[in-house]
């Protein structure tokens, strides 16, 4: 789960990391009040889960509170990469002597959290990573011992010469480890980490991504989810315990299992169709889930045909059949359904569908070809 910058800031500051004071505003007036409290020049920053905010006009300098209000008025409600801006962060504009990068990411290959630290921080860090990776120091951390003091110091020495700045950076690097582990992050990043002309070391911007698997045991973090920043159909799907991602095509897909769901989408594409979504009903499906899945997919006006691809292992295909029948009785699906079922309780499932006037296919390839053809006819 991605956190907003202002949420990430809160987590970092709670661990003692030095970041400029600031505030989050939902209205121009709130932004004005924060700017007045802070005094001096401030930055007004759009809070959206999208990169390239600056280029999209979502980050503005304001010389005073009135200007902050004005900028906030323009940024709030703005669309950035399809996402609407509901909040802005207002922080003092810092004078910057140098910009560094400090990131901590969960690395699959080493099976450890890995620090990535570079004196060449700032907006171009991704280019640095791509073109001059030698400018980035990588340090995999023993997850049981955690980051040891000499390791934090060693990383800090790659950023600064001045021992006071080195020690400040080492402390901050150590605190970032706390942020990462205390919150079950898969990424915790400070960019830029700056020095000010008077020598202070400050974290100016932060990004934190929480491992979704942590949210069950961390309700405080789960509560940070900003559903206003998400696709409404995805919010509805999550509430129904479905894994759903909206796409731009017209073939709705209802599948059990993530791998099979992806393979189904790929096969739709292979046969010339365009999947409208990723949807995994999970292992222990019940008819209710199927009803919800159909309800969510049919809300998408692009969808011209829907494919069920169910390989029954734990999933009972008769449950799925019952769900389909229930859904078609509760509301008008409005588009053709192609149903492929095989595996556990297959015969019972076929009977249920037949009684309701529907037919089921047994072969995935055949079903995908059929749904693609139907979507084309309807388009």
């Amino acid at each position, binding site marked *: 789960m991605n956190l907003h910058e202002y949420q990430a800031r809160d987590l970092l500051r709670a661990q003692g990391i030095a970041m400029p004071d600031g505030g989050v505003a939902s209205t121009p007036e709130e932004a004005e009040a924060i700017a007045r409290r802070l005094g001096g020049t401030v930055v007004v920053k759009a809070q959206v889960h999208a990169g390239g905010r600056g280029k999209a006009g979502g980050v503005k300098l304001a010389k005073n509170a009135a200007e902050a209000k004005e900028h906030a008025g323009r940024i709030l409600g703005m669309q950035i990469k399809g996402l609407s801006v509901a909040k802005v962060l207002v922080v003092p504009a810092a004078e910057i002597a140098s910009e560094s990068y400090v990131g901590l990411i969960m690395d*699959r290959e080493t*099976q450890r959290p890995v620090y990535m630290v570079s004196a060449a921080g700032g907006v171009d860090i991704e280019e640095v990573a791509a073109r001059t990776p030698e400018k980035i120091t990588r340090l995999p951390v023993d997850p049981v011992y955690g980051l040891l003091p000499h390791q934090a110091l060693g990383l800090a020495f790659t950023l600064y010469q001045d021992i006071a700045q080195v020690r400040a950076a080492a402390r901050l690097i150590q605190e970032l480890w706390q942020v990462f582990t205390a919150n079950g992050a898969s990424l915790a990043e400070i960019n830029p980490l700056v020095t000010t002309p008077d020598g202070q070391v400050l974290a100016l911007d932060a990004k934190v991504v929480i*491992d979704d698997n942590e949210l069950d045991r961390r309700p405080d973090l789960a509560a940070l989810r900003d559903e206003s920043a998400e696709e409404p159909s995805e919010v509805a799907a999550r509430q129904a315990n479905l894994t759903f*991602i909206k796409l731009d095509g017209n073939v709705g897909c209802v599948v059990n299992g993530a*791998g*099979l769901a992806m393979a189904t*989408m790929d096969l739709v594409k292979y046969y010339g169709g365009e*999947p409208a979504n990723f949807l995994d009903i999970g292992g222990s499906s019940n008819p209710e889930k199927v009803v919800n899945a159909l309800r969510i997919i049919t809300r998408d006006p692009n969808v011209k045909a829907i494919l069920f691809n169910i390989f029954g292992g*734990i999933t009972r295909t008769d449950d799925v059949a019952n769900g389909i029948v229930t859904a078609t009785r509760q509301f008008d699906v409005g588009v053709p359904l192609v149903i492929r079922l095989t595996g556990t309780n297959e015969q019972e499932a076929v009977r249920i569908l037949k009684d309701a006037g529907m037919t089921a296919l047994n072969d995935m390839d055949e079903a995908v070809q059929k749904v693609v053809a139907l979507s084309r006819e309807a388009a």
Partner: protein
Amino acid sequence: MSIFVNAGTRLVVQGITGRDGSFHARQMMAYGTQVVAGVTPGKGGQTFEGRVPVFNTVADAVRETGANTSVIYVPPAGAAGAIYEAADAGIDLIVCITEGVPVLDMTRVMPYVRSRGARLIGPNCPGLITPGVSKVGIIPGNICAPGRVGLVSRSGTLTYEVVNQLTKNGIGQSTCVGIGGDPIIGTNFIDCLRAFEADAGTDAVVMMGEIGGTDEQNAAAFVKAHLTKPVVGFIAGQTAPKGRRMGHAGAIISGSSGTAEEKMQAFAAAGISVMKRPVDVVALLRDRLG
């Protein structure tokens, strides 16, 4: 012949009295797996299905029954603890079915498991099956058939789909292993490829990958360098958008890395026959096996 599970597999089911654990314990018993013990703290002394003794701890189960393999069906909050317990009790092969285990837990679990010389499969995996001999996990036994093709996969139902194709077309399997879809897993493609290469009962390998990470690329390099047996491969997620978690915690394309295209190219470059559709597996295998 087979890898990881065989006729000597003596299984303890951790969480045997739970909803999932009891269901699958029965399935495994019906398949012929030697389920020698179950574990549920506080239910030690009971008997499951009239013939499997239940113990309070895995250590008790190992001591009393000689269990050498464990399968874990406990909720995510207890999964890491269950793996530690199995490793401490001297279990050789630990199969963790549980989905949703925090990745940070896994970073700590892995060195512990290794230091005790155990192998972990999973978490968030369907387990493995040596058709006709022993099944550990949740792969439906009825779609498998004994034979000489090894299969390793990051997903569950997609595996069933492909196994089903094989069986329907008369191609049996030596062992089918679902290694799981999480970012950090106990056994990866290379571990399985190495085992299949060494297994006299395996003639060819089917490898089912997906988007996210670089495991498939590493596996491709391993195939090129070390495998004498033919390999057929598949990558799911060609149509997946970047930066989104496609169900599996591991299936996220970050930046330009971990894409299906990149992985399929790595496969092709390593001499792996790449399936375009799941149904292609049969023709490609027949082609490679001559």
